[in-house]
């Protein structure tokens, strides 16, 4: 039980990175970027390829972040931004980014094939941390996620860019008439979100031990659950949502459930994620913690 809880904390950290990046993208455009998961996938491939050539996990991490940043920026500049400027509805953009998602997945299949790529970092020897058993890799993942989140919150709350980001999220037209170049702020935000998501793709691949061109898309569905639970477009709520969803997803399957006569397999993760998403949308469509104005469907 404590073992899976420890595992859940690592999953939650990765989920928090992915979800906070997604919520940044959502906040600054007011549309859901369904191709968000592919930023993680590209990050994983970039890390893997760089790691093979350089043998350095740190360079691999940087490559994953940069590749994620570039892909996210390209998504905004080539698709989402123009659609917004031409006044497309959120539904249209939702579908366009879903299309983008398939394009990226299949492009990766063409170049790298659809088979599982094994990617393992040496996790090191597990040791006791308080009540949990963590490997050094686990600790690095959790510590880096916390560090990235803290830096991100400092950027959002303290810098001029952060204030402009919040202004554009809350009221794009008013931001523009205040002299803020909303397009540039949104592009920078996507780049920043891409750095985080690309890095998340790297740690997720390293933590799971393998990936495919479809791996980010699966994780996107869990990301969406965390972001909706936390309140879309709200960074603090999203991190909290990710921690809760991440831990539930690891702990739930480990609970003994009498009527199936044993433990539920962890491969039901996605089913659980959707169950949580459905419940949240029914009960608190604006997130667990907030009275936020928006839901994913507005």
């Amino acid at each position, binding site marked *: 039980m404590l073992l899976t809880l420890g595992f859940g904390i690592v999953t939650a950290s990765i989920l928090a990175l992915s979800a906070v990046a997604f919520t940044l993208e959502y906040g600054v455009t007011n549309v859901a970027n369904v191709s968000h998961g592919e930023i993680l996938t590209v990050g994983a491939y970039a890390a893997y390829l760089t790691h093979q050539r350089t043998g350095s996990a740190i360079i691999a991490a940087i490559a994953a972040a940069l590749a994620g940043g570039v892909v996210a920026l390209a998504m905004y500049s080539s698709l989402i931004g123009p659609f917004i400027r031409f006044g497309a509805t959120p539904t249209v953009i939702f579908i366009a980014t879903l299309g983008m998602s398939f394009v990226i997945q299949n492009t990766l299949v063409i170049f790298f094939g659809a088979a599982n790529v094994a990617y393992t970092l040496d996790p090191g020897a597990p040791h006791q941390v308080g009540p949990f058993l963590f490997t050094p890799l686990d600790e690095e993942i959790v510590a880096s996620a916390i560090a990235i989140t803290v830096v991100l919150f400092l950027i959002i709350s303290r810098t001029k860019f952060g204030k402009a980001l919040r*202004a554009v999220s809350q009221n794009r037209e008013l931001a523009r*008439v205040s002299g803020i170049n909303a397009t540039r702020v949104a592009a920078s935000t996507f780049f920043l979100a891409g750095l985080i998501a690309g890095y998340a793709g790297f740690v997720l691949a390293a933590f799971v031990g393998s990936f495919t061109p479809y791996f980010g898309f699966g994780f996107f569905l869990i990301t969406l659950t965390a972001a909706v639970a936390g309140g879309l477009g709200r960074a603090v709520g999203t991190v909290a949502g990710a921690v809760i969803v991440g831990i539930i997803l690891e702990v739930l399957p480990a609970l003994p459930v009498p009527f199936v006569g044993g433990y539920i397999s962890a491969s039901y993760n996605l089913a659980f994620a959707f169950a949580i998403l459905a419940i949240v949308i029914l009960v608190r469509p604006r997130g667990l913690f907030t009275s936020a104005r928006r839901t994913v469907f507005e």
Partner: protein
Amino acid sequence: MTSDAPALEVVGLTAGYGGPPVIESVSIAANRGAITAIVGPNGAGKSTLLKAIAGLIRPTAGSVKVLGVDVTGLPAEKLVRKGVAYVPQVANVFPELTIRENLDMGGYSRKAGVRERIEQLFKLFPDLAASSHRRANTLSGGQRTMLALARGLMVDPPVLILDEPSAGLAPKFQGLIWERIEAIKATNVAVLVIEQNTRETLRHAQWAYVLVLGQNRLEGPGQKLLDDEEVVNLYVGRLS
């Protein structure tokens, strides 16, 4: 530019939202130190005209000059640097930013003097000073409108454009808003204002335009239009 040229000069402006034009060949001018009003029935295109002036929608014909400089078709974020501040009718504050942060944002394009300007505006709007750390979405309607005005004024604009500043406010706040608008006008600002409460507006306006179906219909000194019962009844509505 000569001192008697209008601060804002709009000539033959045509604009819309992609379909047929909503305003067609509209011409208006606004002088510094004066209140210029645009009145007209609902749906006449008044807000659309303001959005086209402010750079939120691109005009398809005509020209806009600010202080003698052609700014036609400039995007909104550039227009504010040319001296035009625009206060929309709704969604005119950043709801989750504090009063001070809203004003910071209003001064985003300023190179310097943001803090000093906020202190100046706090003197003009003492209510805001008292609660500068409150979030905009916790303010009353009247306070919110004051904040919206102050946000626009952060750039010290020669031209201030207001879309129905007193709409939806209690009568006592409407009086307060007009007091502030008169005070702003007295600082040599060209105030261009749309209002639903036409009588009150015409009383304050040195010059007013009647816009009907997206076109100029009439113009004249506010008081003169107000005295012309026929004008009021025909174009403005009896009770408004």
